[in-house]
């Protein structure tokens, strides 16, 4: 199956791209996706544990199973608003 990975802010800059398409074996979960990303892009591996993960716009745990076509977003610590 194939899932879309989204990067934001410092993760996007370090990855050098706003998104990736990631192929995973059937039955893969969020933890497997993160491990695959860390292997493919070692430059952001150290940051991944600090990011929350959203699948299809909702925050999820690492054990959440993925499905073909899912959108997995890596959410670094947020800071909307102003002062």
């Amino acid at each position: 199956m194939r899932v879309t990975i989204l990067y934001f802010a410092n993760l996007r800059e370090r990855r050098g791209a706003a998104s990736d398409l990631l192929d995973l074996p059937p039955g893969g979960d969020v933890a497997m996706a993160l491990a695959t990303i860390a292997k493919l892009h070692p430059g952001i591996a150290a940051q991944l544990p600090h990011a929350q993960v959203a699948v299809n716009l909702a925050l999820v745990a690492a054990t959440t199973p993925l499905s073909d076509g899912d959108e997995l977003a890596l959410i670094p610590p947020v800071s909307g608003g102003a002062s």
Partner: protein
Amino acid sequence: MRIAVLESPLDLGPVVGAVVGIDRGGLVTFTGLVRRKGRIPDVVRLEYEAYRTMAEKVLEQIADEIEREIGGARVAIHHRVGSLAVGEAAVVVAAAAPHRAEAFTACRAAIDRLKQRAPIWKKEIGESGAAWIEDCC
């Protein structure tokens, strides 16, 4: 429009218009403006980046929650993205309620929760460098 993530300059009018009503006597707004003095000295501009679809969903959830928690309250939130100069508004929130105490509580809750939960990031661009700001004051 109660919730919006916009690239154009923000104004209080639309969020106020989204919450007022004849049974709501108290109206509180919050505007977050880009300051000259940030984490880095002499901020020139801020760049705001959002995970837009999720940000709109989260802001909608925040407004819904607060309206459930505070009887008679109405909440609207507009957030800007893109490049903002010092003095420009990054976010406007309006909360109306029957009385002023609830309106203050609702407005404060909305901006506090936005800062904790909305997938929006900002980068300070100054004369001597740039930095992603990880949390907010």
